[in-house]
């Protein structure tokens, strides 16, 4: 995914660009605040998607990558979603998938990759049925950093990007 960088020269231009990107996010889903093959500048979230529950279970899993291309460590405190009331971060620690109730530290100039087998947000107590194609809002809350909102598309098992 090619990076998107905004250097607004005027309030109007910036406003138009922000509006356009916002609309694109609403329409396309899974749109990062900024993105890039090597990771964008600052802290950003890309490649967000959600695995739909497999009946009769009612658990979903959220995935994304956080780039921390700053010179400071960043603490991801929690993730909330519009899909369910319970959203628990899990990462692999010592080969074992482990709930991270206190959040996850993302070192400077590194990234956190949540992917199948690598970690996920376990989404429970769903607000309603999730089906492939649905768009779900995700908010990542950090310590000492503004929250980042992304939209994640729901995929049926075996069909994720």
């Amino acid at each position, binding site marked *: 995914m090619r990076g998107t960088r905004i250097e607004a020269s005027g309030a109007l231009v910036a406003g138009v660009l922000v509006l356009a990107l916002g609309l694109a996010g609403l329409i396309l889903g899974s749109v990062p605040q900024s993105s890039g093959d090597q990771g964008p500048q600052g802290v950003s979230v890309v490649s967000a998607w959600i*695995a739909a*529950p*497999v*009946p*009769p*279970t009612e*658990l*979903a*899993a959220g995935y994304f990558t956080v780039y921390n291309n700053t010179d400071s460590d960043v603490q991801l405190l929690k993730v909330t979603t519009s899909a369910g009331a319970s959203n628990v971060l*899990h990462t*692999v620690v010592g*080969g*074992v*998938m*482990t709930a991270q109730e206190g959040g996850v530290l993302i070192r400077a100039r590194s990234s956190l990759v949540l*992917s*199948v*087998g*690598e*970690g*996920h947000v*376990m*989404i429970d107590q769903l607000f309603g049925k999730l089906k492939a194609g649905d768009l779900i809002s995700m908010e990542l809350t950090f310590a000492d950093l503004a929250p980042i909102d992304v939209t994640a598309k729901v995929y*049926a*098992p*075996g*069909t*994720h990007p």
Partner: protein
Amino acid sequence: MRRLAAVLVSAVLLLAACSSGKGATPNQTGLNDQPQQCSAYCGFGLTTPQPRPSFTLTDATGKPFSFGTVTAGHPTLLFFGYTHCPDVCPETMADVGTALAKVPVELQQKTYVVFVTTDPTRDTGSVLTQWLSNFHTADQFLNKATFVGLRGTEDEIHAAEAAVHVNLSEDGGQTHSAELLLFGSDDYARVTYNSSSNEDTAIAHDLPLVDKSS
């Protein structure tokens, strides 16, 4: 060398809670998308073939199921997991379903897919049946393989895990091996899959190879 590395990675990544890290597996290099690059199997080739084990658990209808007897002579995919696992388990089974949908119907009909729950408390026979049905009746997975869900006591499940040399499940079954084993019609497993997604092409490539009766 790659084969040795694959086996070592396989050994390291046995245990995970609803997961095992994909790690630096060969499949991440694109082998799955380019099966012609596989040396023999597209999964992890075992240096020492593993004989089909004998263990008896309970099937979803409550009847004893003797794995070694019932599946003997059939290509068989064996996995330990649980249905409330949102991550590796459904993705692995989705890969199995996708792979089966790609092979000839005759091979599908010969193949068993055996899912042993590590969480028998929540995974009743009914839950297992309904959950597994997603992976052979949904349009994208439609296939004629025989899917079997097995349950047992914790000791029985551990005995089955030990019989196939995967790490024993822990934490109420939520920490379990993520290894998918493929036994051939000659009753040996020569290939396994540890990665947790995008294994369908590899499995579809390897299934006909282990069906010596075809």
